[in-house]
């Protein structure tokens, strides 16, 4: 007779086997439903933004030092919603050929500014709502606390293309 202790076999009990099998299957089924839903929900965040889209708006030779109001359409994406919106920009080309495209939206409360319409403020953008006025480069002179925003500008084949709207880069406050 040997005195060595009996080696106990590590056996999986029926209860453990069922728990592992059912747990694994349940987890797999739950993941197969949840993962696609989460992926769907966050999809817009995962999309490669790439270079911002530019829209062709006007021929370069139609521009001068005098601001011209140019209407254009741009596709705007907000999460899952894509829609074409009507926009306008005040565009100028200075003596050195530099093009600037300003948003017409007043930085005070969002009315639309116009060029050279107020006798008191000649050659300025003027807001008819509360009298905010701006220099030709968009610099705020009164009422509004920030300069007019400007669109990204790209010149290609003698045409002006406008991109994203952002803070005015020509004006230092």
């Amino acid at each position, binding site marked *: 007779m040997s005195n060595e202790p009996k080696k106990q076999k590590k056996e999986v009990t029926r209860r453990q086997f069922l728990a592992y099998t059912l747990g694994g299957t349940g987890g797999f089924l739950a993941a197969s439903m949840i993962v696609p839903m989460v992926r769907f929900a966050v999809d817009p965040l995962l999309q490669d933004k790439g270079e911002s889209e530019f829209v062709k708006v006007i021929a370069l030779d139609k521009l001068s030092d005098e601001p011209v109001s140019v209407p254009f359409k741009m596709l705007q994406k907000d999460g899952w919603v894509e829609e074409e919106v009507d926009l306008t920009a005040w565009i100028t080309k200075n003596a050195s050929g530099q093009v600037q495209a300003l948003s017409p939206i*007043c930085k*005070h*409360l*969002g*009315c*639309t500014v116009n060029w050279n319409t107020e006798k008191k403020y000649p050659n300025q953008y003027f*807001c*008819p*709502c*509360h009298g905010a006025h701006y220099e030709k480069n968009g610099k705020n002179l009164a009422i509004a606390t920030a300069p007019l925003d400007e669109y990204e500008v790209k010149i290609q084949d003698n045409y002006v293309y406008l991109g994203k709207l952002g803070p005015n880069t020509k004006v230092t406050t």
Partner: protein
Amino acid sequence: MKFSEWNEADWLSLQLYFDTCILPITALSGLEAPWQMKHALERLRDALDTVEVPFKGRTVTMPAVQYRIADEHLFVQQIAGIASNCKASGFKYVIAISAANELLNLSIPNVDLLLVNPDKSTSLKLVGELWQKQD
């Protein structure tokens, strides 16, 4: 801005700047077919855009008066009463806007400007003049 875009805190702090109330009037009779009502509302929306967009920072668009009373005198009284209440609530000006041509020649007490099917340039001119005249 539309009435639905406001909350109490914003209104209390900005009310001073928003002195003009826009009262849209669809003026339906109830006899229209659904597609005609849809067109009437679309035309009203286009008319509203000529004022709401350029003057967003000074105007508040109220809910529309959708149906008109057949009796013109009573209808005018109804609109005049609403306009009077708008002024009593703090607005300095009331601009009524409609796409219904029947309203073209109406004179409505308490309404400072009635625009019927206006184009963009007409609205810009008349609203600007209203403010300049009385500011």
